[in-house]
Structures are given as structure tokens and as C-alpha cells.
């Protein structure tokens, strides 16, 4: 018996799948070499082995199996899926369950994200409202403090009242109150607004002569009323001869650019 015959003897067992690994490797090497005779004999051996199926006792599948199969096949045919198509019926239930769980999780995540976004937006709006309210209260407090400070200057016996008559007799008279420690307040009524980009500016005229010393700028409200205070005037009361008020550009000037509209001597 030659080597070729030895391989032929292995073909039926190979077709059965019962060859042990060493014999199988030998035969597969031979088949891979392109032996047409053995390849043909192997196909016949596979056919022969398939006939052993008739040893199985006769049995009938249930009608339900046929029903399930036809239902799937009809659905796929109606869906226009060609051969090789991957169909839903092949997908196991647990995969569908996983997909459903993932879908639910995605919906929940999207809803949760929207919910969080709304919550964050509400919190931001709430914080913004609180911040605005706080600023409003701070402004009110600042104004109240200012008014209290001004009131204290006006009422304190150590304050000195200074009248500022207008150069133009049509203009109202202004008055000022200067406290040596708490500062200087100037106020007036029915004062025309300078208009344009101009403001009123207070000047301190030194006793020793020289240039007037610039101080605060201010402007009346719509009713011509104003009350302006400077806590730290640029000079002391004892060194100041008079107070003067001029019209200046917005932001004030370092020296007067117009004639004084009000002047009042400091006694």
C-alpha cells in the first residue's frame, strides 16, 4: 500500500470528523497539496457519511415550528430583504432587551439632562435676581448713609453755613454747610440743568491767593434740586476764603474754564 492509499483510508473518518489531530493534520497537508483524486474521494465520502442520518429514529417536528418559520419567511419576503440579509428574527431576545434598556436609559438621561439644565437655569436666574436685589439694597444703603451723613453735617453745631448768592439774579441762591471733620455739603433748588455735556463744579478759593482748588462736580435733577457732598475737601475751612461754582465739561476741570455762577465767602 503506497502513501496515497494510506490517505484514502482516512477520508471517511475525516468526513465523519472523527480523525485524531495527528492524522487530521497529515491528511489536510496532503489535500492542501492539490491531490484532485483525494479531493473527489472526500466529496464522495461526505455524501456517504451524510447517509448515516437515516439511522435516526423517525420523528415529526411540531406544526408550531412550521408556523413560526413561515411567518418569519413571509415577513422577510414582504420586507423585500434579499438573501444574506440579517433579519430581526435572528437577534436573540436578550439583545433586544439590552437595546430596549439602552433606549430607556438614553431617554432617561436626555430627560435628566433637560431637567438639570432647567434647574441650573432657574438657579442662575434666582442668583441673578438676588444679586440685583443686593445691588439695589447696597445702593439704597449707600444713599441712606449719604443722606444720614449730610443730615449730620447740616445739624452738627460745629458746621458752618455758607450762602452762595448767584451772579445772575434770575438764578436761585445756593447754600453750603461745612463741618471741619465730616465734610462739605452744597444744595440748591430750582437750579437749571447745565445741559449738553456740562456739569457744575465746586471750587475752593484759598485765603493765601493763587489758583482756585477744584472739588466735586454735580448736576441738578429734573426738578432742579441737588444735594452734593464731599467728605474730604481739598483744603481746610480756615485756609479757604470762599466757595465758587462754575459750569465745566463732564469730568470736571483742573482750573475754571468759565466765570463763577455762584460765590460765597467762608466766614
Amino acid at each position, binding site marked *: 500500500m503506497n502513501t496515497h492509499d494510506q490517505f484514502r483510508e482516512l477520508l471517511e473518518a475525516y468526513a*465523519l*470528523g472523527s480523525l485524531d489531530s495527528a492524522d487530521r493534520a497529515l491528511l489536510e497537508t496532503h489535500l492542501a497539496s492539490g491531490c484532485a483524486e483525494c479531493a473527489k474521494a472526500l466529496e464522495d465520502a461526505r455524501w456517504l457519511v451524510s447517509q448515516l442520518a*437515516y*439511522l435516526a429514529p423517525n420523528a415529526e*417536528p411540531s406544526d408550531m415550528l412550521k408556523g413560526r418559520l*413561515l411567518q418569519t419567511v413571509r415577513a422577510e419576503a414582504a420586507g423585500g430583504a434579499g438573501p444574506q440579509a440579517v433579519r430581526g428574527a435572528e437577534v436573540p431576545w436578550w439583545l433586544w432587551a439590552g437595546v430596549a434598556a439602552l433606549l430607556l436609559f438614553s431617554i432617561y438621561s436626555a430627560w435628566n439632562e433637560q431637567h438639570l439644565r432647567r434647574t441650573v437655569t432657574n438657579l442662575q436666574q434666582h442668583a441673578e435676581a438676588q444679586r440685583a436685589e443686593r445691588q439695589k439694597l447696597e445702593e439704597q444703603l449707600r444713599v441712606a448713609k449719604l443722606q444720614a451723613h449730610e443730615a449730620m453735617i447740616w445739624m452738627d453745631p460745629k458746621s458752618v453755613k455758607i450762602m452762595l448768592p448767584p451772579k445772575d439774579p434770575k438764578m436761585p441762591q445756593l447754600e453750603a454747610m461745612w463741618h471741619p471733620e465730616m465734610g462739605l455739603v452744597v444744595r440748591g433748588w430750582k437750579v437749571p440743568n447745565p445741559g449738553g455735556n456740562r456739569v457744575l463744579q465746586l471750587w475752593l478759593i484759598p485765603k493765601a491767593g493763587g489758583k482756585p482748588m477744584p472739588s466735586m462736580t454735580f448736576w441738578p435733577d429734573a426738578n432742579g434740586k441737588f444735594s452734593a457732598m464731599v467728605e474730604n475737601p481739598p483744603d481746610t475751612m480756615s485756609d479757604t476764603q470762599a466757595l465758587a461754582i462754575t459750569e465745566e465739561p463732564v469730568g470736571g476741570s483742573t482750573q475754571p474754564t468759565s466765570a463763577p455762577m455762584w460765590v460765597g465767602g467762608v466766614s
Partner: protein
Amino acid sequence: MFLAVFSPKGNDEVSLDATLMQQLLRRDVSAFEELYERHSRIVYSLVLRILRQGSTAEEVVQDVFLQLWRNCARYDTSRPFVPWLLTLARNRALDHLRLKSERQRRREEQTEEFPQIASAAPEYEKALDEKRRAERVRALIGSLPSAQKKAIELAYFEGLSHSEIAAALNEPLGTVKSWIRSGLMRLKESLQATS
């Protein structure tokens, strides 16, 4: 050498299966139904013999026929249909029986998912119709000594290797090899013989 007796019925049946498979390519559901009617019993019988559990066997049979429907384009209509279908069903059933095992790996190495069967049916397939071939297979294997019959059944229905069968039957390896080979040779001779 055998004498082939032409059997019009057997030949017609082979031709009918090929025609039905061609119709399947055109997504003909009635052709699928007829193929199922013609072959579901032997396929189910084989799978049930291997798996021994009705519901699991039906799952595998369903899988086999759906594969037939979906992958019919990969079937070569010039090849004998029933042996191809039976080989496909056996492979699927044994895969279920021994998932992830060494035997599965060995089968996967040997046979493709769509098995290779003789490109032309042996003459004795044409000579005998399916019913007579089935009777002859049962008669021949039934006539073998019980140990030899058992060895062939363990190989075919359980997917055991020569060594595993030798161990299961407590027989020498050479004896088992010889039993299986001689049994199959006798089967071949029986199928080749005229009625």
C-alpha cells in the same frame, strides 16, 4: 464496480430540489414551504437524535431552514441537495451539543458552514430513492456487530474522535479505526448494489 439502476423517481426528486432552490433565490415562499415539507422530518429526526431534546432540536431545525432561506444564494444547485442539508443540520446540532469544545473547533476546521458535498451525486443516489436508501442504511448498519455499530453512532451522532470512541468503548484505537472504516465501506457497497 456497481451497476447503477436508473430510478426515474429518485432522479426527479433530486431535480425537484434543485428547481425549488432556484425558486428560493427569487424569494418564493411556496418553494420554501415545499422544501420544508419534503425534508423537515429527516432533518428534525437527525437533530433530535443528536440533541435528544425536542425544544432544542426545533430551535436548531428552525435555524437550519432560516439559513437555507437567507443564504440560498450560496448553495450550488448542481450539488445533491439532501446530503448537503443533512450535513448542515448535523454540524449545527453538534455545535449545540458541544459548544466551545475541542470537537467543535475540529469540525470548524474541517467543514465550512455551508458544507462541501460531492459536486455530482454518486450514481447510487440516483439509483435509489430516498426511502429505499434509508431502508438500506438502517439494514446495513443494523447488521453490524453492536460494538461496531456503536462506534459509528458515537462518531456520527456524538461527534467523538477515534480516541474518544476507543476510550468510551474500552477498545484498542486501531480496532475502532478499522470498525468505522469497514462499516462505512460496507455501507457504500450496499448502496451501490442494485436492488
